[in-house]
């Protein structure tokens, strides 16, 4: 087995790295304080085909392979996890439409998503339904005019600016997925404030009050909304979040390398202290291990191998818990400075914690992973 990047993938990673260093890193702390990313950075993502980049050429996308997509996600997260979360949710919806959308839905939505002309968001969680996604209380009813949705969605990432929502609702007790455009009558979007992780990810609450959408906006079949449509979106999101956690880990490492070289205590740089080196060694090895798990999951996803599901879950589990440990250690290494917004490591810790909660919490992965049959490779 040879697991290394191709020349093209390495060049792409360098391009992503330069973009993030120039266009994201200098602004990430400000976006975090302002609880919003800039329109300018979204335009830059669009211009570079970084949004909806897994959409295939047939629908106007650049069709990035999963490894290159992972490298993009890692680099974006190295700069700002809120920007990463825009890629994640937008691409989750694009992926679900590409996988389970009807020919008309693919034709209608994918070109706009591939160009980033329309931003997409996943409307799954509710006040009473988090990990228990099958327990959503939003309902859909069939009428002559179309599907009529009633209910309340919460924690919808980038819901504040999304133009298209992938919504899970119950139709006669069967989880069913729908595509809801922002301008649909009966849909109200309210900003959700006061979060302390991925603070600039512009969360929203959605209220559906007799929200009427065309019959053609049912995606997948009735009763397959969770098991296939949302599951496809979540699986893609899990992959994206795993890489995002690697990006946070790398950002922690970069910050600690700088700080421990510059900061002197007891007459020598921090990096000369053995207990600091131990923390750095753990960070280095764990970031690399998480990246390898992500690369393997990406390779399997490109092969369309069914084993990819559990490998993606393993990668997400390891990478997200690793990111929290790395960020926690990064704050420790920075001492009092780590508790200050003059340094980014506090943001990394807050953002890392989010990766343990979204797209299947750590506990959901711990419950699910032992159910799989991990084969030797």
């Amino acid at each position: 087995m040879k697991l290394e990047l191709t020349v093209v993938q390495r060049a792409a990673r360098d391009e992503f790295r330069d973009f993030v260093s120039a266009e994201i890193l200098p602004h990430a702390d400000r976006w975090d304080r302002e609880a919003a990313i800039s329109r300018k950075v979204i335009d830059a993502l669009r211009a570079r085909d970084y949004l909806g980049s897994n959409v295939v050429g047939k629908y106007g996308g650049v069709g990035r392979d999963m490894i290159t997509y992972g490298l993009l996600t890692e680099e974006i997260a190295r700069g700002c996890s809120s920007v990463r979360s825009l890629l994640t949710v937008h691409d989750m919806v694009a992926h679900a439409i590409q996988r389970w959308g009807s020919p008309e839905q693919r034709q209608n939505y994918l070109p706009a998503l591939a160009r980033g002309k329309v931003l997409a968001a996943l409307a799954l969680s509710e006040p009473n339904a988090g990990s228990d996604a099958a327990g959503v209380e939003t309902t859909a009813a069939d009428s002559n005019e179309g599907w009529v949705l009633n209910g309340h969605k919460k924690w919808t990432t980038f819901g504040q600016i999304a133009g298209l929502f992938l919504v899970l609702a119950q139709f006669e007790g069967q989880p069913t997925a729908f595509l809801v455009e922002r301008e649909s009558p009966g849909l109200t979007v309210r900003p959700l404030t006061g979060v302390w992780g991925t603070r600039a990810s512009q969360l929203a609450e959605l209220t559906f009050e007799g929200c009427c959408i065309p019959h053609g906006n049912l995606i997948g079949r009735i009763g397959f909304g969770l098991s296939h449509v949302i599951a496809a979106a979540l699986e893609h999101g899990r992959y994206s979040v795993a890489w995002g956690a690697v990006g946070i880990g790398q950002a922690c490492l970069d910050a600690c390398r700088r700080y421990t070289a510059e900061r002197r205590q007891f007459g020598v740089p921090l990096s000369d202290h053995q207990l600091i080196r131990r923390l750095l060694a753990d960070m280095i090895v764990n970031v690399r291990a998480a990246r390898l798990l992500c690369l393997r999951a990406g390779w399997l996803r490109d092969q369309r191998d069914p084993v990819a599901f559990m490998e993606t879950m393993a990668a997400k589990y390891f990478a997200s818990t690793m990111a929290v440990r790395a960020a926690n250690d990064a704050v420790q290494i920075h001492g009092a400075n780590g508790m200050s917004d003059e340094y980014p490591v506090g943001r990394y810790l807050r953002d890392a914690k989010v990766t343990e909660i979204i797209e299947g919490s750590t506990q959901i992965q711990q419950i699910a992973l032992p159910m799989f049959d991990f084969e030797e490779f």
Partner: protein
Amino acid sequence: MDETQVKIKEFLSRFLKSHDLQLDEDIFALGFVSSLLAMQLVAFVEKEFGIQVEDADLDLDNFRSIRAISDLVARKSAPATA
């Protein structure tokens, strides 16, 4: 069982280690089909048999048993008629 059915059985048996799955046995009635297995099953038949499962194929009856899945594979593999 034919070759297709044997491959399907081998795949499903990975999740049913102590159960000898029969050709027409209802896998949903056995209660081990999670949403993750459902997605893996789709990925398996697509990769193994070179077919594309579309939204129109999302019907529990297409995935209910080894025979049902092999019938789906046969239908999707058949050359299109004019």
